[in-house]
């Protein structure tokens, strides 16, 4: 086994999936938001909802395209770099991914076409239906991915035959408490991402004193939705902690920076985990029973420490420890912003409070950072296992993969992704800077349903006068 090839494969998977998840988490939320906007327009008949819809549809197109392009790679990477995993878990993970491709891509591709071109060709209710179907497609995709990943976190419903994981209970694989606390957690995270991007855009326009009606709606709806969803998200986050504590004590101990078994346990708020000497430096700790209360909802429960787990089964402690705290920190900031902003908005003072407007404008990275660090916690915390406690990552990698091959592919991906990411984000930035422009969306002559990103060009090429409108 080539250890460098293993490390490079892990870096490559981490890099490509980190790059990929940015776009779906944005588009899942945006698709749902577009559905709400279209429903509101049908119910109220206010043209402003149509303007906002058409504007965000353009942004949706660009992000959707980048998600599609980067997603293709994921479907093949299991086989190329992780041939042992894909051979052993293929009977379970393969069918799950097949259902993702079959159900989600079908809905998305078909109704995305209607979304772009069908405005004049289908009745309003069918147009709304199409929007909802795109949202449903992205949700299906998220669902199958969460089932898939949850099986790697907490494998269930299988027996081992001839070194292969053979499914014997699909109900257990799909309908278990782990899936149904993680899937809502991811879905809510996507909705919050959409909400904060919309609110930040609204705040930017208010600060620039542009698009008065649109910006107000974006700001209030974005912050209002976040104000409602954030507490629910914290609740599902807590449920996730519950599954980790029950099934993955090694991950939990790393997240908590807990070295010794404690009963009842204290709670480390901040520290620098000194892995070599098995202790925390500069620790700020809440006394018992706060740790037991947070991890096990109990005043007296015993909690496992890393010292009672063999070090060869430890995850890299520092990464889950800090990424978890960054995620929670982002969540708290978002909760504060959403509640304060919504309160001020009720008092009709939001649009005069420049400090909060600036904070909201600058808040758009928070949900992305929270999602990425949340995934780092889940995935790095699962190490050293690919499938928790039954298949080590080191045994999952393609056994004959060489350092040369892994280096070449990693360099290819870093170069190409950096290239297309730079252009993609630049186009999204330019679209948002340009703004809704009050003009109804028209399908550009050359834009077609299978060219989602060409939507981004439409407003800029046909309406050059609006480019840079905010300057």
């Amino acid at each position, binding site marked *: 086994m080539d250890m460098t090839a293993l490390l490079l494969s892990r870096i490559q998977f981490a890099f490509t999936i980190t790059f990929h998840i940015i776009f779906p988490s944005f588009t899942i939320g945006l698709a749902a938001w577009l559905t709400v906007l279209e429903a509101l327009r049908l119910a109220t008949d206010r043209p402003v909802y149509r303007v906002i819809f058409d504007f965000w549809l353009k942004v949706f197109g660009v992000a959707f395209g980048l998600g599609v392009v980067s997603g293709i790679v994921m479907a093949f990477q299991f086989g190329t770099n992780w041939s042992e995993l894909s051979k052993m878990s293929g009977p379970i993970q393969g*069918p799950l991914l097949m259902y993702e491709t079959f159900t989600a891509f079908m809905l998305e591709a078909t109704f995305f076409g209607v979304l772009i071109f069908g405005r004049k060709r289908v009745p309003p209710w069918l147009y709304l239906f199409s929007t909802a179907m795109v949202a449903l497609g992205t949700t299906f995709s998220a669902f199958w991915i969460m089932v898939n990943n949850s099986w790697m976190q907490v494998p269930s419903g299988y027996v081992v*035959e001839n070194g292969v994981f053979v499914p014997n209970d699909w109900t257990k694989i799909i309908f278990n408490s782990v899936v149904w606390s993680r899937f809502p957690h991811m879905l809510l995270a996507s909705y919050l991402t959409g909400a904060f991007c919309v609110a930040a855009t609204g705040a930017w326009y208010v600060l620039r004193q542009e698009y008065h009606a649109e910006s107000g709606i974006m700001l209030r709806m974005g912050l209002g939705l976040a104000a409602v969803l954030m507490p629910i998200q914290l609740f599902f986050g807590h449920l996730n902690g519950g599954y980790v504590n029950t099934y993955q004590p090694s991950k939990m101990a790393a997240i908590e920076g807990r070295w010794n078994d404690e009963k009842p346990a204290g709670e480390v708020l901040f520290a620098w985990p000194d892995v070599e000497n098995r202790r925390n430096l500069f620790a700020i700790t809440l006394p018992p029973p706060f740790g037991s209360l947070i991890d096990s909802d109990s005043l007296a429960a015993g909690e496992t420490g890393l010292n009672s787990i063999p070090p060869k089964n430890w995850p890299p402690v520092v990464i889950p420890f800090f990424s978890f705290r960054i995620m929670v920190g982002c969540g708290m900031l978002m909760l504060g912003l959403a509640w304060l902003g919504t309160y001020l908005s009720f008092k009709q003072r939001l649009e005069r409070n420049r400090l909060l407007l600036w904070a909201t404008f600058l808040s758009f990275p928070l949900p992305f950072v929270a999602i990425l660090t949340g995934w780092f916690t889940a995935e790095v915390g699962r190490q050293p296992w690919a499938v928790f406690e039954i298949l080590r990552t080191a045994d999952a990698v393609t056994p004959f993969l060489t350092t040369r091959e892994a280096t070449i592919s990693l360099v290819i991906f870093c170069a190409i992704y950096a290239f297309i990411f730079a252009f993609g984000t630049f186009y999204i930035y330019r679209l948002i800077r340009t703004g809704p422009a009050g003009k109804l969306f028209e399908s550009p002559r050359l834009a077609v349903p299978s060219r989602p990103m060409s939507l981004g060009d439409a407003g800029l090429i046909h309406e050059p006068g609006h480019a840079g409108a905010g300057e």
Partner: protein
Amino acid sequence: MVMFWVLLLAVSILLYALLDGADLGVGMLFGLARGEATRRVLLRAVAPIWDGNETWLLVTGVILWGAFPPVYSTLLSAFYLPLFLMLAGLILRGVAFEFRDNTQRMRWIWDLSFAGGSVVATFMQGVTVGALVEGLRVTNGQYSGGDFGWFTPFAALCGVGLCLGYALLGACWLAKKCEAEVRDAAHRQIPVLAVSVLVFLAVVFVYALAEHLPILHRWIDRPYLFIFPAIGAIAAIVLARSILSHNDDWPFYMVTLIFVSAFGTLALSFWPYLIPFVITIDEAAAPQSSLMFMFWGGVVVFPLMLVYTLVSYSVFRGKIRTTTVHY
């Protein structure tokens, strides 16, 4: 049940090669096209359909993984570099569709990535098929061919052959979809490409028979299998006639038929192996509980995807009016 998934796998691979083959071919011909107006017409001929076409590659991938996990893991890991080079090509040509309209100054970059990406992706697909025909070196159930074991003269020849084949499909598609100069250029390209492809196919067929006696015996034992090469030969004759009469539609249908017969010939030569002489269909099949779970996806959702493809092609049917090509 296993045969059902073999069938869906075959349909997906064939659809991918035919549909994406045509637009990869247009991508390669794009590199030869001069002038912005011509290039726009070429792009328009494939822009509405290329993404849907590429989805069939994903469909192939997930069917392989779900229904035949050992094949998925063996093939993808053995063809590590060709696969990533192919994906890189597909990504670059995919974004080129979207990005080239956003810039004047840097348009050459996206034109290059569109044509270059198409060539790289196609060449790598051909190399992979060629290396498969030659046979993967496998020791104790594990690929042992090395980083570049797939890169043989024969595989490279297949890479070039597939480039010619896809370019032929692309040219026929352009003849069918376009008017005026673009169509006339396609009509000039079709005979050249067609002759090269037929020569190439004949060489490969003879080579495969000569190298692999087991295949030769199968063909001698079951002469009725020659139905596939025979269909290909008849299609070639009709193709020649349609080229001479400058027909716009028939070349595309006949080349499609030649592709189908070539695929059928190849598949029958492999039978009952999925990876020739290494893994058979029955050895590769996932457990019954997996196949049963996938069954509803295959029976209900797969036909829906076919319907989508049909709808998409019928919405964008007919000639592109060159006169409307402007911004």
